[in-house]
């Protein structure tokens, strides 16, 4: 049975998988954003994750998890723009801030760092549950992950639960009427469409679960 520790290498794998997933889903994310936004979410995320891959490629291999995710976050802030740049940027900056100098994370400290990221997104964007944003995928992901850990789940099980929670949360955005971001301008017409940011958040949690799938 594999390690229970989440290493920097695991987290690099997370970023690589998330990046690939974003590129593979670029057109899909843009199509979602065409329906209730401005048709750029796929392009925004792809530009950002390409820049992240480049930045991580030249990062000091001894950098701690905290420094690594500060780089990820600052890169997204510097390269993406729009709503998703500051939001995902803040997510990773706060994630890194919480992980700080840790060399490895366990299930609990991973959940804590993710929580810090989510709280950063909420603080930055001021969205509440039900506003039809990425937060609606993040919150159920964290709830599911906490519950799994409380039940004694492994890291692999807990992140799989988080991914499943994100998917559920994402799909629950369909009937919602948007109250934040561009989609909110549509009023009732925003109902019936899946939120693009919630969709990219699912890719994030699914990538995490894949990267840690063999962790005890």
């Amino acid at each position: 049975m594999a390690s229970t520790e989440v290493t920097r290498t695991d987290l690099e794998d997370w970023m690589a998988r998330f990046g690939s997933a974003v590129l593979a889903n670029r057109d899909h994310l843009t199509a979602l954003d065409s329906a209730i936004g401005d048709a750029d979410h796929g392009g925004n995320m792809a530009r950002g994750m390409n820049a992240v891959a480049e930045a991580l490629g030249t990062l000091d291999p001894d950098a701690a998890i905290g420094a690594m995710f500060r780089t990820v976050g600052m890169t997204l802030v510097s390269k993406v723009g729009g709503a998703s740049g500051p939001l995902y940027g803040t997510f990773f900056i706060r994630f890194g801030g919480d992980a700080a100098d840790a060399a490895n994370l366990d299930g609990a400290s991973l959940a804590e760092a993710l929580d810090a990221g989510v709280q950063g997104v909420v603080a930055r964007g001021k969205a509440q549950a039900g506003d039809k944003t990425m937060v609606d995928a993040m919150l159920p992901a964290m709830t599911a992950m906490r519950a799994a850990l409380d039940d004694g789940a492994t890291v692999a099980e807990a992140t799989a639960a988080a991914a499943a929670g994100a998917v559920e949360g994402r799909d629950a955005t369909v009937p919602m009427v948007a109250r934040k971001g561009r989609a909110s301008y549509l009023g009732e017409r925003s109902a019936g469409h899946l939120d693009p940011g919630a969709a990219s958040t699912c890719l994030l949690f699914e990538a995490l679960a894949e990267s840690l799938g063999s962790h005890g």
Partner: protein
Amino acid sequence: MKKLINDPDEVVSDALRGMDAAHDDLRVDHDLKIIYRAQPKAAGKVGLVSGGGSGHEPLHGGFVGPGMLDAACAGEVFTSPVPDQMMAATAAVDTGAGVLHIVKNYTGDIMNFEMAAELAGDDVRVETVITNDDVAVTDSLYTAGRRGVGVTVLLEKIAGAAAEEGQDLDAVAAVANKVNDGGRSMGLALTSCVVPSAGSPTFQLEDDEYELGIGIHGEPGRQRLEMAPAAELAERLVAPILEDRSFDNVIAFVNGMGGSPLLELYLMYGEVRRLLDDAGIRVARSLVGNYITSLEMAGCSVTLLEVDDDLLRLWDAPVSTPGLRWGA
């Protein structure tokens, strides 16, 4: 998608190359995608920085120059610029009198300008004015709030004139806020537009439909209605503006979304003017043309700005930018 472009992902950098070549009185930082005046403003005058997604040209880069902006940060198409740009622009244009940030009210723009301010620290005094003049957004409690649209153009001109005459940062910010408070806009689209990196129209309209209450990002509006004559369209734009605020003496601005012929914009202006006459509203100044656009979208918006002698003096003051130029 058919466009006069090369690589869809390089549209903004390629266009900035052309803009740089076309205008000797502008300087372009191509790395950071910032448009500056070639000749910086005299020391002691407030700097004006704006920015936003590209695709709204001439806004904002075309409004850089004496009497208007000092710098404009260009984002990707319909994507707000990033904090690095605003930080660099702010530092570059400050002459010691502080800098006004002019931000259109969109979640992305707000957050990126906000982060720029947080990251910049206290080196430069920055005030921010947020434009939110779009009456199509009726419910600001359950939305991201009204969007910044046509008033942004008028505000950049008027605040630019205030800065040019040497008003201090508080005064320039006050005049900017006065413009935003006194301005209202409403827009409609006959067609969608094509975001280059997306490659197909953001929405589809039938040949007998139009979208009422659109913004400037090719996003659908609040309502899809059956196509109607210009006289009726003008009423659909003017009525909600007049319901939202009372007007007495105005700058009347008919703005093209980019794909409608100037002939039609003048025609719409004639209809708007008739409605204003009927409502007993005096028109002090007029502006008709493509000033804040949504790529090749066909359609237009109407902006009314209540003005007093002070605002009119600032409006009439010389301005010399690629997009707006008089008296100089």
